[in-house]
């Protein structure tokens, strides 16, 4: 086999395969068609499937996502793109008040098989409105699933699963992973909800997702002594999320750190810590902590942004502190 696909190629391939398999799958979004997407993720799909399957849209995200939701309850399976996750601000209603709730409000009268594709990726001076990781906002809304693939394998498999899911899924890509190839492309597919042990260890457990998986793995590979003996778990999906594997790990290691790119304050780490504490309180002999971004908007200037986001240095420091305290 030639080179394994890049993360973005894995996304593209999942879209192509599902569109091939099921005529009801359509794509919608700003410049996802002829242009192939602002990052090239949907390249070739317009040519292959045509304008009735791949819908370029005006910049009218609330209308587009609302229409996608209406199409989803009318027999199609739309994959609608929000170009940057930050822009859920202009189209939250169809996601949160319509798609997430329609099946419930109708007492099961409809299913809403829709995927909201969006991407995030701080750390490249995108500025305050193009850098946010807002997965906690979505994960808080009953009726939504939230997938955050960390590598090409999961980018593919979780998108396939999202498209086939009868309910709405927010599928969050990380653009800083787009060009990465995957060591483990041959890894078998895992279902959503099941965390994956990326690296075994006995001294402590680190839980994360998205870009922070590879970031943390790189940090761990550099550490030595006790700090090297850390278990790393990729949560993969925030909803659903079966923490049994994580709890088992923390019972073993006695310490836990949740790392995420999202702002720490009222961020996704709180949920994970709170659930773990419920399950493992009497088993831990060290701290259960979070490391997320600082409670500020994302600054533009590189040194400020490096300070704001969880950097390799801060991750390393947090892991050392976890082991020492």
């Amino acid at each position: 086999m030639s080179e394994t696909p890049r993360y973005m190629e894995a996304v593209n391939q999942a879209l192509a395969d599902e569109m091939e398999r099921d005529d009801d799958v359509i794509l919608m979004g700003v410049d996802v068609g002829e242009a192939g997407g602002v990052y090239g993720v949907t390249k070739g799909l317009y040519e292959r499937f045509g304008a009735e399957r791949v819908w370029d849209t005006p910049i009218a995200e609330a209308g587009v996502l609302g229409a996608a939701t209406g199409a989803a309850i009318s027999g199609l399976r739309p994959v609608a793109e929000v170009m940057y996750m930050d822009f859920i601000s202009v189209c939250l209603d169809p996601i949160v008040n319509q798609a997430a709730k329609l099946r419930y409000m109708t007492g099961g009268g409809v299913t809403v098989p829709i995927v909201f594709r969006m991407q995030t990726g701080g750390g490249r001076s995108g500025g305050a409105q193009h850098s946010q990781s807002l997965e906690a906002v979505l994960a808080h809304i009953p009726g939504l699933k939230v997938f955050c693939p960390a590598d090409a394998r999961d980018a593919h498999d979780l998108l396939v699963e999202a498209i086939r899911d009868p309910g709405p899924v927010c599928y969050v890509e990380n653009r800083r992973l787009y060009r990465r190839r995957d060591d483990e492309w041959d890894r078998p597919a895992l279902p959503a909800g099941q965390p994956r042990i990326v690296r075994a260890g006995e001294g402590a457990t680190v839980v994360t997702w998205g870009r922070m998986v590879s970031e943390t793995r790189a940090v761990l590979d550099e550490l030595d002594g006790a700090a090297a003996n850390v278990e790393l778990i990729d949560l993969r999906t925030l909803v659903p999320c079966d923490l049994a594997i994580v709890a088992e790990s923390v019972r073993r290691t006695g310490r836990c750190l949740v790392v995420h790119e999202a702002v720490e304050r009222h961020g996704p780490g709180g949920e994970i810590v709170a659930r773990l504490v419920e399950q493992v309180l009497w088993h831990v002999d060290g701290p259960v902590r979070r490391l997320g971004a600082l409670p500020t908007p994302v600054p533009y200037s590189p040194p400020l942004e490096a300070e704001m986001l969880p950097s390799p240095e801060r991750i390393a420091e947090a892991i050392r502190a976890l082991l020492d305290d």
Partner: protein
Amino acid sequence: MARSKAQTQELLDSYRTMLRIRRFEEAVARHFRAGDVHGFVHVSIGQEAVAAGACGPLGAGDVITTTHRGHGHCIAKGADPEAMMAELFGRDTGICRGKGGSMHIADPALGILGANGVVGGGIPLAVGAGLAARVRRTGTIAMPFFGEGAVHSGAFHEAMTLAVAWSLPVVFVCEDNGYAEFTRSGSWKGPTVADRARSYGMPAEEVDGSDVLAVRAAVLASAEPARAGDGPRFLVAHTFRFSGHYEGDPEPYREDDDRALWDERDPLAVARKALGSRHDAALEQLGEQVAEEIDAAVKRAAEAPYPTASEVFDHV
């Protein structure tokens, strides 16, 4: 103008639909006051001709979306008043199994994609249904109902823009019922609703929303080209919200002359007048039938069980 026999039959059928809506909503209001119906309830008394006239000509595959004031559209599109009443009573036999309530009443199997608690929220949904109709070549149309208060919303603008951009089979129906909550229609400087619609490049017609056959004719005229792929159409129905904005509204904002309009605008009275006295006996009988139907609906709703607690987790 002389009416054909077919038209008379249509008028009789429409009258029946309107009467069923009226009696249903009167019962809803009564049972809201009695504490059987909960939450926020908005009735469409005075606006029945729009629902009946617009939904009458729709086919089974055509779909509608509606607003917080959606009982009438549901009944006109074929929803079962008994299941609707059970819904409003919060019962397990409700049309949404008690989960939706008045503001989310729906019956997707009948093409009723639901009421909506968010002003403007249903409009893009209908556009999406139109998109699905186009992609799947079903030959069906989608019809969002919304109030004149919704046209200022971004959702309206974006939905209109998409429907035009993609030539979707959508017939927009705006009910100008005189008020958005406590604010009179036309309070805001700006174009009329019809002119606003035309500005998107969409044919728009205004129609007397108290005249059910006029609404029906306008919808028929609009639905045909929309269905044929000639792009969306728009109707403004001038109607009249006889009740308060919500059940319990003390209506201090009403202007004196408001109620005076009632006699000439009541769509049931208008239809009855058009029918003349020739049908009095039949209509009397109809009145009894409908009263019975609604009474029975209430009775069965009141007897139906509430959902069991564990159902809270179903359908998430």
